């Protein structure tokens, strides 16, 4: 039949499958004090410089530079078409990003706070995660969703959630969370360069943590955990805001005669089974630490994976030190909820004497 209006032989729109340039040539400079927030800001600017398909948008990101100033200066530097404010509508923000990615752009969108991202959940679960699969690769989704997450900042309700388990449970999405200034830069660059959608959880309590370095830096690829401290007796497995808690715990444990290894997962999806299992094979003990509620949390997945693969090497049950199974508490009570060094030390003692 001749009722055909669309021709299959048109020139293609900008291709989302064209590999994105990864890193510009590093400019030699003296090491400077860089905050995690600044590293994220620099990563966005460098990605926008390297690839004109990268666009940044969300609530208050343009003139204000975001409520945490992560997008500070981008609109002024790159113009309103590259960094723009959106109406206050998270489903629309992500849905718009999906449509732009269909046309070949590489959107980086900001959700203002963890709990404000939930309106976008349907777009994330039903479309962002499934579009590549649904279209057999015809419509890849190189989109980054930046979400400041976690507690300990004195925020009122809806400003301190840890929503990683909801996302990590959804096949088709990469889930990244940095804990260091270096990883903040490099993992965000890697996320923007990724051909797949990434939910990039930013540990907001660590925004103002500092390091002496010269940007740009490179660290590990997406999907690899980092060993932050080596030890023989027990593996602490942490990510995001619980990495400093784990490192401080290891210092105190050393005084008690326990030699702890600390893993920073960095990437929840893809999950680095190899590094985690190799560590637990060495130490024979593992404790998972996260701020989100423990019940059906990401720590349960880690504990199960270790038990399935290292059962006969384990000297003690895999333990979890997590947030309580309660709605996130108000600021005056949140210290009861968050995994503390003391609570992790108790778990270490328990595992070491099991």
């Amino acid at each position, binding site marked *: *039949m*001749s*009722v*055909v*209006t*669309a*021709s*299959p032989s*048109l020139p*293609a*729109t*900008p291709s989302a499958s064209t590999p994105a340039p990864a890193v510009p040539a590093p400019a030699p400079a003296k090491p400077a004090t860089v905050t995690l927030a600044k590293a994220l800001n620099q990563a966005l600017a460098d990605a926008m410089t390297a690839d004109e398909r990268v*666009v940044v948008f969300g609530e208050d990101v343009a003139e204000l530079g975001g409520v945490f100033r992560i997008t500070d200066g981008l609109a002024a530097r790159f113009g309103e*078409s590259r960094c723009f404010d*959106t*109406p206050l*509508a998270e*489903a*629309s923000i*992500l*849905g*718009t*990003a*999906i*449509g*732009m*990615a*269909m*046309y*070949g*752009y590489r959107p980086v969108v900001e959700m203002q706070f963890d709990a404000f991202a939930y*309106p976008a959940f*349907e*777009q994330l679960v*039903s*479309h962002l995660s*499934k*579009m*590549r*699969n*649904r*279209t*057999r*690769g*015809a*419509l*890849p989704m190189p989109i980054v969703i930046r979400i400041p997450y976690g507690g300990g900042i004195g925020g009122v309700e809806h400003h301190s959630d840890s929503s990683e388990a909801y996302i990590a449970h959804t*096949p*088709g999405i*990469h889930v990244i969370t940095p804990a260091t200034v270096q990883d903040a830069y490099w993992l965000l660059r890697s996320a923007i360069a*990724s*051909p*797949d959608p990434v939910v990039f959880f930013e540990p907001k309590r660590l925004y103002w943590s500092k390091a002496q370095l010269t940007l740009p830096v490179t660290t590990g690829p997406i*999907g690899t955990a980092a060993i932050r401290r080596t030890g023989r007796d027990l593996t602490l497995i942490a990510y995001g805001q619980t990495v400093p808690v784990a490192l401080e715990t290891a210092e105190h444990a050393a005084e008690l005669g326990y030699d702890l290894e600390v893993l920073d997962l960095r990437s929840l*999806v*893809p*999950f680095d*089974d*190899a590094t985690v299992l190799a560590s637990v094979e060495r130490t024979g003990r593992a404790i998972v630490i996260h701020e989100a509620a423990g019940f059906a949390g990401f720590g349960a997945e880690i504990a199960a994976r270790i038990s399935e693969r290292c059962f006969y090497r384990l000297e003690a049950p895999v333990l979890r030190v997590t947030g309580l199974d309660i709605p996130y508490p108000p600021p005056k009570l949140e210290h009861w909820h968050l995994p503390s060094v003391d609570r992790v030390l108790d778990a270490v003692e328990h595992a070491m004497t099991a």
Partner: protein
Amino acid sequence: MTLLDLPLAATRGNPAAAASYWDTDPLRYLDEHGAPVEGGLRPAPELLATDRLLALYRALRLARAFDTEATALVMQGHLAVYPSSRGQEACQAAAALCLEPQDWLFPTYRDTAALALRGIDPVEALTLLRGSWHCGYDAKRWRTAPQCTPLATQAPHAVGLALAAKMAGDPVVALCLLGDGATSEGDFHEACNSAAVYQAPVVFLVQNNQYAISVPLRKQTHALSLAGKGVGYGMPGVRVDGNDVIGLMHVLGEAIERARGGGGPTLIEAITYRIRPHTNADDANRYRDTSEVDLWLGRDPVDRLARYLTAIGHLDAGLDAAIGEEGAKYAAAMREQLAREPEVDPADLFDHVFASPTPQLRAQRAMIEAEAAAAQRDGQQDAAHGGQA
């Protein structure tokens, strides 16, 4: 009763509201009997050229043939499910024929006939409903987003694509199809609002077929018209007779031209009717009277254009039969291909989750391949021993 006697609860017992409703009569070129309406739309001469009108008629007949065949195929178990567009052929044809090749179409699950009219192979167009994959056509090649079953979630995608095209300086328009039920969804509101704020080149075409499965429009909205919602977003809202393909083409053409020229989005409400149940699995007798269906069968969009073309001397019985034969051939080819069991490959389950599979997916793929190989061996052994494979 006339076309304008629509089930709008808001007007019941409320003469003022009813009067206001009557003020927003749907625009149209042809009346129900296929005669040009006095004081109605005045389409450009190109739209009324003989070739153009016959192309529209062919499209209507093809949409009807497609829908009739797909309905038969689902009854015989060759499709998993089929939401029929019978009675909505004018909207299906206009949605496909109003676009330029570089434009994008964002269909709903009920718009498979429109996909066929855009040129997509019917087997590819029906892949979702056949159940062999989620989308069978190359969405990028055909500038046609994949169909899916959540309502209104494609609307923000259409806005994003239109915004991207505008930013790239390309003369591309996105046409987003929706049903009346979808206008209650949050994504519809967010998309309309964002489209207007961005002045994105997108056109929203709401096929108001009076029902969202069983729920009639009066339970869906208290508004007097869906097109009237455009006011709240700061965009033009247009009500058009959804069974008048000439009127639809005219209204869509104006909206698309405005969008392409930088004039921003338009919300179009096309008044039509879903003749068949929601899908083959639905029983419409539970919620509507057959007399209502009979009424709308008398407003058939295909017959309407046929009457007009006959009256103005563009269509005779011979040509009508020849066009019908084209549709019959198309339907026979559909049947020939779709009555066969589709081939599926379990490797498809893993190939497109990510650009490159995670270690965990590689392991699961190996497991499924081993299971498939074992099943094949068992089948061969059964066959060798005379058993049933």
